[in-house]
């Protein structure tokens, strides 16, 4: 009897674990199936076409892809230096008594839902951008800044974790030789934890590119490519969030599904690179 239950238990856990794999495969298959109509209608030009006109049944995703890339790029160039600074501060500069509370508050801030960051951006940050740059304040630039603030806590926390993997004995040896804090950071911590630090940035990049709510409030969902960063723009998640519930033709839906599939493939690839190249997970035990 025990033997029987044992087998049932073992097999059911295995089946459930396999369902996780199947689920991921299923997501890809379903999104692909629903994109077929749009793939057939537009082919490769879907990705490069700049015209998105639902009333004309014409769908080109380039403005959304461009917006995703540029807003994420803006967010990264602002968030990377600041999060390195915060990580150095947390691991080398802060007093021991400050380290834990400051570290925990950063981690807690990473848990605050992105919709809150978006709402703050809309009510408090958009007016500032409007006052400085003119226009309506809802723009690519605003989206990039709000996004950078949203990923900052996550990025700082993982960068600090990567830096903390440096063995104390290495750092202490460098200090004993008369190294300054910067010498230790530059010659010991960064070389030692390089892979982990880069991996953390790429992981944050993967999150930023799929982030929806922090940018939906402040980007405007305008399918136009403009060199002027203070103009409204759109990105893949922003388009999805704004238009999915309103799409009124099968081709429109299909195009939105193709956008989702694109987004999933992009972020899946980015996160895989981070995981497999840089963050090969160290198993416990």
């Amino acid at each position, binding site marked *: 009897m025990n033997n029987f239950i044992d087998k049932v238990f073992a097999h059911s856990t295995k089946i459930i674990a396999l369902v996780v794999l199947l689920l991921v495969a299923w*997501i890809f298959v379903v*999104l692909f199936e629903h994109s077929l109509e749009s793939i057939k209608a537009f082919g490769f030009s879907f990705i490069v076409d700049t015209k998105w006109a639902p009333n004309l049944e014409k769908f080109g995703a380039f403005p959304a892809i461009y917006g995703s890339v540029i807003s994420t790029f803006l967010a990264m160039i602002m968030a990377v230096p600041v999060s390195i600074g915060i990580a150095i501060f947390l691991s080398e500069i802060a007093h021991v008594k400050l380290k834990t509370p400051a570290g925990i508050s950063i981690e807690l801030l990473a848990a*605050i839902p992105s919709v*809150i960051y978006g709402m703050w951006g809309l009510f408090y940050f958009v007016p500032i951008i409007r006052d400085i740059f003119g226009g309506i304040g809802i723009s690519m630039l605003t989206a990039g800044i709000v996004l950078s603030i949203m990923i900052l806590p996550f990025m700082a926390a993982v960068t600090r974790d990567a830096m903390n993997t440096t063995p104390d004995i290495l750092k202490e040896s460098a200090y004993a030789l008369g190294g300054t804090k910067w010498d230790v950071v530059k010659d010991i911590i960064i070389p030692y934890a390089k892979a982990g630090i880069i991996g953390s940035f790429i992981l944050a990049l993967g999150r930023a590119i*799929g982030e929806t709510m922090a940018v939906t409030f402040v980007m405007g969902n305008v399918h136009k490519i403009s060199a002027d960063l203070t103009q409204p723009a759109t990105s893949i998640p922003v388009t999805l969030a704004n238009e999915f519930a309103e799409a009124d033709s099968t081709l429109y839906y299909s195009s939105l599904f193709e956008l989702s599939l694109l987004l*999933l493939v992009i972020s899946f690839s980015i996160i895989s690179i981070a995981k497999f190249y840089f963050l090969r997970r160290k198993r416990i035990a």
Partner: protein
Amino acid sequence: MTHTQKRILINNIVMVLSTLSAIIGICFLLWILSVLVANGLDAISATIFMQEGAPPGNINGGLKHALIGQLIIVSYATLFGVPFGILAGTYLSEYGQKSKLAEIIRDISDIMMSAPSIVIGAFVYAIVVAPMGHFSGWAGSIALTIIMIPIILRTTDDMLQLVPSTLREAAFALGAPKYKVIIQVVYRGAKAGILTGILLGVARVAGETAPLLFTSFNNNFLNTNMSEPMASLTVTIYNYATSPYEDWQKLGWAAAFILSMFILTLNILGRLFLLKKKGK
């Protein structure tokens, strides 16, 4: 300037810069928190918990529909996601261990943890909302379940592996079958860790907006029927904050405050459980 002086100077510059960046980062985050608390406290009142949504201009509008909707959607997601994640995590830690299959499942599930949640919404739209012909609370719960599974799976896997193998061996030596060892020894040893995983998983999905936008959609009235569109705090925040009506925006801030406090509390509780375990 001697070489040493130069090094010290550069060191000081970098130290000032990184302290500054920490201060800048923390200031921005404090700004957001203070805005949230100030607006939230200003907007919160007893009526918010007693009244449903109302048209703009009506002072009797509340968030009861969103609070209850959120509670139902997240509860069902927890109900489905937790056992699923724990059993899958059990397989990885206790049966699969370092096998190829287990490693693949770990990697894929880890990647899913960071995948864009709005894509999950699109997937659930295709498999649930489109066939049913309308938005529903079920669709919302299913989307959140899919987001929660990888989180629970990962923490269960990690926490079960922390249980010393000598405990398992002792139980085996007494003649216990494997499933009993897992349920009565391994689960007990990892109780605090698993609980933390559940709390963090619930906290994570409770803040999700994007996957609910076109699954559970929204509802301005109290609805407890899972087959109908259902309000959630997060989608309500989005709709009210982007509306032009001041009283709706105010309700949006109240909802944002309640949601953030809920999520922060879960996170702090989760940490306390782990600390308590370490302390023993």
